């Protein structure tokens, strides 16, 4: 007798600046799902916030999807507000019937995989929505997502744990109608970051993917950079610029049982820091390879996996810090922890934690010891998602503990 296949909804796209990268992440995950065990259900969140499903979403050549082309797709929303016993997780698809009457039908699924980078997908908002709707999901929970998306919060927690992070200062977006107080920021730079001088490195507090990041050599450049960032985010982080910069990334997961770190990669770059386009559009002429899959996105960018010039003890330290951070922040899924280093002095700092990394960092697991294929990774993440859901279900109910007032 055939067991019913597990239906896995993968939600990608979104309203953040990382919309396009998320499409690749989502499609690759769907393509990695073992067809013997799972059926995939693509859910695309367009940049206007609408949710869609349909087979057309599976072809890279159909993107970007213009509003006029949406008639081949099915408009859907998450089913929420039903009693838990009615039916399990589901989408509600609506279409216009013959006489213009709206018809609805249910599309059930078993688990959802958030594949949206940045706001909504990676900051706890989607996770909160899914928990409210009683939907099992893959990856970090609400708190873990909300804390790690906030670089200031993350650095404070890690620093308190003794994990090395760069010193930093926060600058907040001026209240509407007021101007950026450059003088005040410069004064604070002088006091809070007193042992450091220009150049500094500025980045949005909550956005990822190198959008808005800039090296600034003087106050004027700082002002420009902050104004750019404040168009995207409400706060910015200012850190000392690290000379002889070298970066190391490692993935961490608990989905295989114990907390485990993957292969370490050193992104190889021409410019001083990865900028957005180079990070994601690494086709031969800079354009993404359509319908290509395993060689697209970050996977094909020049990278040195398990770099031979990384000393053993350094590599071990990177893995230890990454695993400690993973445990302390109670993370889940396949998380990528990014480190910065000064290749001359050998100093190392934890830079940021990405709880929904591009391609779920599958290539780092592919090169790990032991090797984990993307299909195996996907299966493990899904199993972990179900386990976490079961764990949540055992929490309090309204009629426990004698707290009722109305009898």
């Amino acid at each position, binding site marked *: 007798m055939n067991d019913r296949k597990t239906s896995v909804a993968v939600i990608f796209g979104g309203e953040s600046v990382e919309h396009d990268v998320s499409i690749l992440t989502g499609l*690759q995950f769907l393509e990695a799902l073992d067809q013997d065990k799972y059926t995939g259900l693509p859910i695309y969140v367009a940049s206007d916030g609408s949710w869609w499903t349909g087979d057309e979403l599976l072809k890279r050549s159909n993107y970007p999807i213009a509003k006029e082309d949406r008639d081949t797709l099915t408009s859907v929303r998450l089913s929420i507000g039903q009693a838990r016993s009615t039916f399990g997780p589901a989408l509600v698809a609506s279409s216009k019937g013959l006489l213009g009457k709206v018809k609805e039908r249910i599309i059930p699924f078993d688990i959802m995989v958030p594949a949206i980078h940045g706001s909504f997908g990676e900051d706890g908002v989607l996770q909160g929505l899914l928990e409210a709707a009683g939907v099992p999901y893959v990856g970090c929970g609400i708190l873990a997502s909300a804390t790690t998306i906030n670089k200031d919060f993350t650095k404070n927690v890690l620093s308190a744990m003794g994990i090395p992070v760069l010193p930093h200062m926060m600058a907040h977006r001026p209240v509407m109608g007021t101007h950026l107080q450059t003088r005040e920021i410069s004064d604070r730079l002088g006091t809070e970051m007193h042992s450091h001088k220009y150049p500094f490195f500025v980045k949005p507090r909550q956005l990822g993917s190198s959008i808005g990041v800039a090296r600034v050599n003087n106050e004027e450049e700082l002002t420009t950079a902050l104004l750019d960032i404040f168009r995207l985010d409400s706060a910015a982080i200012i850190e000392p610029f690290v000379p002889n910069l070298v970066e190391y990334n490692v993935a961490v997961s608990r989905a295989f049982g114990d907390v485990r770190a993957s292969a370490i990669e050193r992104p190889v770059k021409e410019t001083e820091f990865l900028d957005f386009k180079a990070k994601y559009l690494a086709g031969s002429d800079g354009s993404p390879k359509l319908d290509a*899959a395993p060689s697209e996105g970050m996977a094909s960018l020049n990278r040195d996996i398990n770099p031979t010039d990384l000393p053993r003890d350094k590599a071990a330290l990177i893995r230890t810090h990454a695993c400690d951070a993973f445990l302390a922040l109670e993370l889940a899924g396949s998380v990528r922890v990014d480190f910065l280093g000064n290749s001359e002095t050998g100093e190392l700092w934890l830079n940021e934690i990405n709880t929904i990394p591009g391609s779920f960092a599958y290539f780092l697991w592919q090169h790990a010891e032991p*090797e984990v*294929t993307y*299909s195996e990774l996907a299966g493990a993440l899904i199993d972990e998602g179900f386990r976490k859901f079961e764990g949540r279900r055992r929490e309090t109910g309204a009629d426990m503990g004698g707290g009722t007032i109305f009898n």
Partner: protein
Amino acid sequence: MAEFYKTISGLEDANDAVEIIWLHGWGQDNSSFKALTSLLERRARHISYDLPGFGQTPMLDKGAGSAEYAAALATQISPLGHSRRIIIGHSFGCRVAVQLAANHPGIADCYILIAAAGLQQKRSLVWKIRAGYMRALGKLASLFDRLFGTKFRPAYARRFGSADYKNAGDLRETFVNVVNEDLSAQARQVKEPVMLVFGSEDRETPVALGESYRALMPDATLKVLDGYGHLDILGRGAHQVQNIILSVIKTLDSTSDKGQ
């Protein structure tokens, strides 16, 4: 026969490692399997050939068919020895693989045929009528050219020829011979296990072809990959194909252990 151009990648030691030989499809070359060989680089030693007339390998004789390709390929492959060997083909490469298997039993432990060509497809009546009409038109064009010195036949080829036909160049005779081949007899002679992998959306070598092959071959399994076509099965379909190849390697490992 000069040596075929090939790229070698993956594991170094050939005695312990599984050796995988890759045979590409028409109009392609050894790089068409790059996604798969890189996903499998820690699991096997990969030898990916440029078949004659493609990439950097010189042509065989004009009009050479899949049998000649297989015979030439056989001279390139070392005897099996201790290592385990899998031959993997895609499309046209599968024709060569089937000929190789039929004429050189034991040259590999098993075969994986992806989107395999080589059998005549069952065609609908409408298709057959149209095909008959097209053939008549082509013959008429040739006749006119012979009688009146017109240039209808090349114009006919430009208008109705497939992309592969038009781009074939010196390989055109081979192409015409090959598309008319039927390898049913050879398929029946394949002694080794064969894993047939077809995409559900493949319009060039539909799943029905896979079913025909499975019926003809003594020891064949058919795996249909949902949502993949003739070409993208090697690209975005690579994770699925990788899983199949890994399970074949696992089976090979366990049977060779039993053999010891």
